[in-house]
């Protein structure tokens, strides 16, 4: 009985106010929430749909071009009488194999060893290098092409050649490999390294015999990731490889590459048939790139499972 004589608790009043407001706005808030969550779902579906759309475009327009002849012939010039006579993309396939292969040979060892340094050492120099790799991975890739053009093609008179393209792609790949292999090396449990060191092994031995073998899936991820990026790059090759229409296995001669041959089809004054046939080239290119990319993801997933 005496409870009712006490003055009303301001906190209780406030709570009642809050609760009534919340209750009154509940229907509206729930509706807004449902609508906005729907919007969020739609934007995600949109992102997914774009990729599906691009893959659909590539397959529906590209498959008709894929044939043995298309893959094993050099391009030819369409004429009025034979507008579909666009030939094949052998020059681009061979060029891409040689140029990307050489770029891998140059970039992977340098990238992995430098990545090892980023993971193993900790000083001002290493920190500066880390920042530099970040800047380099973000640079517009055409600038690498411009740089290599000035140094190799002009200054050292190499002329337009596949190897110049390889160098540009290697410079593009190195910082990517460095960063990814730093992550891979850092994920090696320090107990393994310490076990090696405690047995009297030198740092170099521990790295070579313990760290690198353990980090192999991660290093593979790094190499595949960088390769998938390099294979699709057009800009750095633009003024370097000469973009010929004939096949050459010699990296010191002018070569072509898959992305370059697509780009060429869209330069001025070239036939619509050639532009359409670029769908075939694009299908080949995207297939290769997506496989490399998926490969790097699988290697990454594998290395993560190993770690657990």
């Amino acid at each position: 009985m005496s409870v009712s004589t006490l003055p009303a608790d301001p906190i209780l009043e406030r709570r009642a106010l809050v609760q009534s407001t919340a209750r009154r706005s509940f229907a509206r808030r729930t509706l807004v929430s449902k609508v906005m969550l729907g919007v969020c779902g739609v934007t995600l579906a949109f992102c997914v749909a774009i990729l599906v759309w691009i893959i659909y475009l590539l397959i529906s327009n590209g498959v008709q071009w894929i044939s043995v002849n298309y893959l094993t012939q050099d391009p030819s010039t369409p004429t009025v009488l034979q507008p579909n006579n666009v030939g094949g993309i052998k020059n681009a396939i061979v060029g891409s194999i040689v140029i990307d292969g050489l770029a891998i040979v140059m970039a992977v060892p340098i990238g992995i060893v430098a990545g090892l340094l980023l993971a193993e050492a900790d000083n001002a120099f290493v920190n500066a290098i880390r920042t530099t790799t970040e800047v380099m991975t973000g640079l517009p890739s055409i600038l690498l092409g411009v740089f290599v053009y000035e140094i190799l093609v002009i200054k050292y008179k190499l002329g337009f050649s596949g190897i110049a393209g390889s160098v540009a792609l290697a410079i593009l790949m190195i910082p990517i490999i460095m960063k990814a292999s730093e992550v891979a090396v850092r994920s090696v449990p320090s107990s393994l390294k310490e076990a090696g060191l405690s047995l009297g092994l030198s740092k170099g031995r521990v790295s070579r015999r313990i760290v690198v073998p353990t980090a192999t899936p991660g290093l593979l991820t790094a190499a595949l990731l960088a390769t998938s990026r390099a294979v699709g790059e057009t800009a750095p090759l633009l003024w370097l490889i000469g973009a010929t229409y004939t096949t050459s296995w010699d990296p010191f001669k002018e070569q072509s590459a898959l992305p370059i041959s697509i780009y060429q089809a869209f330069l001025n004054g070239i036939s619509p048939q050639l532009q359409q046939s670029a769908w075939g080239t694009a299908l080949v290119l995207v297939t290769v790139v997506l496989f490399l990319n998926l490969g790097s993801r699988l290697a990454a997933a594998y290395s993560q499972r190993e770690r657990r």
Partner: protein
Amino acid sequence: MPEAIDTVEPTAAAAPKDRASGARRAPVARSDRAYWATLYGTTAIFVVICVAFLVTLIWNSVPAWRFSGLGLITGTKWDPQNSSYGGLPLIVGTLETAAIALVLAVPIGITAAVSIVHLVPSRLRTPLSSFVELLAAVPSVVYGMVGVLVMAPKFQGDVLPWLQHVTGNFFLFSGTVSGYSVLLAGTVLTIMVLPTIVALSRDAIATVPHDQVEGALSVGATKWQTLRKVVVPGARVGITGAVTLAAARALGETIAVAMVIGGNVHLSRSLAQGGTTIAAQIAQSFDGATALTISNLFALSVILIAITASVNLLGRRLLHRANRGAML
């Protein structure tokens, strides 16, 4: 794991042999020195390349700065045939396309990232985000191609006339429309930067502590209120970093933009007409240009590096800060 043990054994057996030879420290120290020398030596190759890169670009741009001075940034007329090198149309085009890309991609990207983390069943989370990230793997020349063959006709015939109609010939969309336009370039860039924004914002959003989310829900906030008032603000720094990196990518994109932007070097207020960007102009006019033109292209490269590198570094600083915050 068994792999590691296998490799430890033979080296462990080799160690006592060193000791038996009487040279206890020297071989270890020497091989350590060789090891570090290899590491630093290899990294030095990378450093030399970077320094050569910067020096080459700056060195070759000196004649252009001497010739054009600040006109290279402020001049409005880009006409290499008459030795007039005003870079403003190129700089404006670069900023315009990147701005369009961000305006379109940021809302889409952030809401998509929110959906991946908080709305999608956890089983679908990884496959969905990998799928969206694959967009980043598609070569830019393929985006350019889709832009030319599929999107440009649509822009010319439907999108741009419709925009003019709806906006009442607003100055941004006025004039004779051209399929190859700044707006098309911006739209293509939108697709290209989406995966960057989605992937990095997703990481940032995933680091927002779960008890904060549950706290908001437990006091009666709806899911949307929680996402808007707790999750996104909590991931603010990381999301800003993601957007900044996307901006850097958009500013530097070359081939796709060069293919769809139309290569119009005259300043135009309308986004429905052609334009150009620094990177696209380098791609289109490098070969066969005069020495002075090439030098001017180098000077533009230096400007482009300055822009992209600083935007890039800013973005990474923000992401680092966000990640450190997540660990605390």
